[in-house]
């Protein structure tokens, strides 16, 4: 059964130095508040897994939380590079960063396989693509019926999945809506999980029988953090802060301005600071 905790407790109880961690959310519902708590608690040597590393991992990498990044598209979407990632990967600042690179199809299939308890995923992919030559975790498998050659990648298995959702109920069930990405898969592929939510409600109430729900017994910790996905967004609650994504480019370009930003907006703040973002109309 999911425990309803404070954010600092949830991160302390679930994230350990050296863990394989995914903070997922495909543009939508990215768990920024939880990532900030991971930064505040100075977690180290994490292997960070995420299809689209985005600002959330730029911040973690820039603060030296990660040893390794597993990803399929690394950038500030529609804006440009992730400067902290590039500084770590290209210059080793603040420390060296190893990478394992895939395509989106590979990672989506690998999350699916992880949730399904399979050791690997099969898909028609990487044909003619050079990634298969530089990543030893991309292999070939032959269909035993047609002899077609397909790609295989290991399932994603996580120590911790951290995601953000719209709602949890008092029983600890979690409901997602909108662009749901690989969040359900990530939680089901993880030993432990933290779900931050916009609100904890008494009951979900009227809904489709096919609503996307994680039952409480599949979830580790639940934390209510209003606005906790900002500058990402929460469908039905608030919009993506595209302006902040653009503003991140100059902030993150320079090591000092990055550190100053983290100091002001992360180290000296708590999850309550996100609430203001939830007040903007959806």
């Amino acid at each position, binding site marked *: 059964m999911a425990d309803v905790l404070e954010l600092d407790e949830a991160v302390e109880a679930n994230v350990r130095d050296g863990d394989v961690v995914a903070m997922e959310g*495909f*543009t*939508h519902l990215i768990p920024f508040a939880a990532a900030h708590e991971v930064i505040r608690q100075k977690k180290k040597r994490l292997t960070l897994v995420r*299809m*689209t590393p985005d600002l959330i991992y730029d911040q973690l990498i820039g603060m030296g939380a990660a040893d390794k990044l597993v*990803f*399929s*598209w*690394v*950038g500030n*979407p*529609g*804006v440009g*590079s992730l400067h902290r*990632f*590039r500084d770590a*990967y*290209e210059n080793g600042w603040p420390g060296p960063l190893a990478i394992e*690179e895939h*395509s*989106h*199809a590979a990672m*989506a*299939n690998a*999350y*699916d396989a992880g949730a399904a308890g399979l050791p690997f995923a099969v*898909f*028609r*992919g*990487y*044909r*003619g*693509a*050079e*990634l298969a030559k*530089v990543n030893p975790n991309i292999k070939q498998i032959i269909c035993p019926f047609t002899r*077609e*050659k397909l790609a295989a990648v290991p399932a994603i298995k996580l120590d911790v999945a951290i995601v953000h959702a719209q709602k949890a109920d008092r029983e600890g069930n979690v409901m997602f809506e*909108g*662009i*749901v*990405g*690989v969040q*359900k*898969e990530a939680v089901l592929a993880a030993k432990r999980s933290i779900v931050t939510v916009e609100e904890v409600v008494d009951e979900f109430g009227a809904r489709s029988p096919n609503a996307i729900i994680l039952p409480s017994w599949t979830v580790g910790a639940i934390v209510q953090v209003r606005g906790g996905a900002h500058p990402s*967004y929460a*469908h039905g609650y608030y*919009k*993506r*802060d*595209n*302006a*902040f*994504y*653009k503003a991140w480019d100059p902030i993150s370009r320079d090591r000092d301005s990055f550190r100053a930003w983290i100091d002001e907006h992360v180290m000296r703040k708590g999850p309550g600071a996100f609430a203001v973002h939830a007040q*903007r109309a959806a």
Partner: protein
Amino acid sequence: MTASYSPTEMMTVAAARALKNDDVCFVGIGAPSAACNLARLTHAPDIVLIYESGTIETKPNVLPLSIGDGELCETALCTVSVPEIFRFWLQSGRITTGFLGGAQIDRFANLNTTVVGPYKKPKVRLPGGGGAPEIATSCGRIFIAMIHSKRAFVKKLDFVTSLGHGKGKNDRARRGIDTEGPTKVITDLCVMEPDPKTKELTVVSLHPGVSREQVTEATGWPVRFSNKVAETPPPTEKELRVLRELYARTAAAHGEAA
């Protein structure tokens, strides 16, 4: 009479025109999104746009900044998970047209969005493949839209992120790939198509006012021109108006948040 327009507008308009009303289009990140939505707002109102974020038949009123903006979900017929979009929708072969861009392209329309320089020690680390490696081989055909420059149109890619026509000729078929691959490369200078036999990109149409020399100058290999090079019809007033309105709405929407 048409209004004046920028080369990028010409590129977007030419790309939009290549799309048909009955296309099912997988829209990768970046420039393609403008072309696909321009097509939808002009001659192809029923075109089906699918974004890798899982949004199916989306009809955004403003262009998304990211591939998963709320606008895409709110205006979609339905939204599925990311594993489903890659498995049931892309891999299954039901997409007619994929739209790609890239940092580098070679004469056979192979693309690089991974690194400039060696993979393990890159001069510039680019975003990587994202959906491109599988879009490039699973869609019925591929359109590519890119700004024409010697840095982008290179003799040899630093890295093959996604397959075009490989080493040319029947290289795709030889690899067991039964989709067409890139059938059009639309730039701010011209439109190129693979030669039916060699599959080398060939200029088939120059945008108004663009000379062969300009294209040659902006291309990193000795570029070929087809026997009959057409002039791309300039953007119509309607195309320009709709495109500019789309950009204006987008700018207003993206600037709004604090």
